[in-house]
């Protein structure tokens, strides 16, 4: 199994979720994170004190999938999160050794 982690623009979350639903994937876990990268931040001014804020609000989305689904999920995320502008984010793929559903104790792809 794979854990697919995507860092995306917050307002794209709905679109990505819809795209994943179409693949029949309804489970995922989402966090609010701050991203640093090539995309420029912004300036804030408070009574003459200027701060350059480099971090940008991003959403981190994690989906555990079976090997077979991985490719399709990645495609779906790219397709739905892409705006063509810098800062669209990244997808990280790593191996998952085990998945367990707490309620039932099911393991492996059954637990996803």
């Amino acid at each position, binding site marked *: 199994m794979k854990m697919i982690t995507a860092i995306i623009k917050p307002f794209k979350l709905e679109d990505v979720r819809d795209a994943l639903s179409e693949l029949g994937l309804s489970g995922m876990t989402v966090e609010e994170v701050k991203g640093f990268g090539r995309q420029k931040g912004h300036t*804030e*001014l*408070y*009574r*003459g*004190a200027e*701060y350059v*804020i480099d971090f940008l609000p991003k959403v981190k989305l994690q989906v555990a999938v079976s090997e077979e689904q991985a490719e399709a999920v990645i495609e779906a995320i790219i397709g739905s999160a892409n705006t063509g502008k810098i800062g669209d984010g990244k997808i990280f793929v790593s191996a998952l050794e085990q998945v367990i559903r707490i309620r039932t104790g099911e393991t492996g792809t059954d637990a996803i």
Partner: protein
Amino acid sequence: MKIIRYALLTLGLLPGLAFADEINPADTAWILTATALVLFMTIPGLSMFYAGLVRSKNVLSVFMQCFALTCLMSLLWFAFGYTIAFGSEGVEQGKWIGDFGNMFFAGMTMDSVSGTIPTPLFAVFQMTFAIITPALIVGGFAERMRFSAMLTFCSLWLLVVYAPICHWVWGGGWLGQMGLQDFAGGTVVHITAAVAALVAALVMGNRKGYGTVAMPPHNLTMTVAGAGMLWVGWFGFNGGSALAANGAAAMALLVTHLSASAGALSWMMMEWIKHGKPSVLGIVTGMVAGLGTITPASGSVGPAAAVVIGFSAGIICYYATNLLKQKLKIDDSLDVFPVHGVGGVLGTLLAGVFCAPSLGIFSGNGFSEGISSIGGQLSVQAIGVAATFTYTAVVSFILLKIVDKVIGLRVDEDDETVGLDLVLHDERGYDL
């Protein structure tokens, strides 16, 4: 009315000698209200305004400072402050401090009268001024002062700085006698608080990381809500300083409102021009500048002059803030001096100009008794500014040094990193 008031002060009649033995219920009604409004300025007004500006880890410490000061200054005012400032009935008031006949409000009953209102009301109305003035200083040493040191310093300060200066100007003392026009506290409140804040900032040093680490306000919604409360409460502050429900109170309220509006807009304009965008923090800061600046002048000037005063306040305090922060790099953390101090000086001086009765649409309510020119009035105003500024600076410095030796002014570095809320109060502001 203002003239009457100055006359009363000059004659040392207010409240030293009650000139009427009957209260006016309408004046009483208004000053009861005004007292509530001025308390409202400090809690929750000022405390929210300030607390929103600090970092989340220090939010409660600011509330705590404002709240504890409210309580402690009240008891000190009751015990000693009031009598130092205003003395007691039937006693000729001296130039420097009041007589000690009203310690613990000893001479005060339900039937005592000061001017046209009950003496207990005059005492509690003035008490709210004695609360907000030390509370304003909090902005100078925010995010790094020890709570015990803060209480000690402010207690001493109330008794040896605020109360005497209050006597000089409003209690029948030398500045009032000289004809200083300071209707609601340009010198007594704003200059004293702001100078103390600046001295405190200098004595204590900058916050750790100041200038390198970003220290943006943690909750501007709180600040702007507090700003609205300050504006509303200021109607009681300036309008109530007429001590009556009359045309003078009405005019004070009107000019206060116009100056706040003009100050807010001119600061906003400056940001728009210089930075390209206007900010919420900018507009509310301009509002405070406009309010602080009109305060001494609110019994002296008319509406058109109030707009000029507010407008110049917004611009001048804007530049002063940038100067202190960017050039002098002084960490007067919430900008008390450039806003209240510069505004207080400016307003006290401009009161001397725009009180003049012959400036057409910019005319005011006249010079003080015995003064007949702008030059004459201005020099009295300048003396008032210089005296209160210098006295406050010197005495505040001495007090701070003493407290630093005895208790220690600052928390240690690690505690400053963790934040005062946890370190000093074992609490956190938010657990959302």
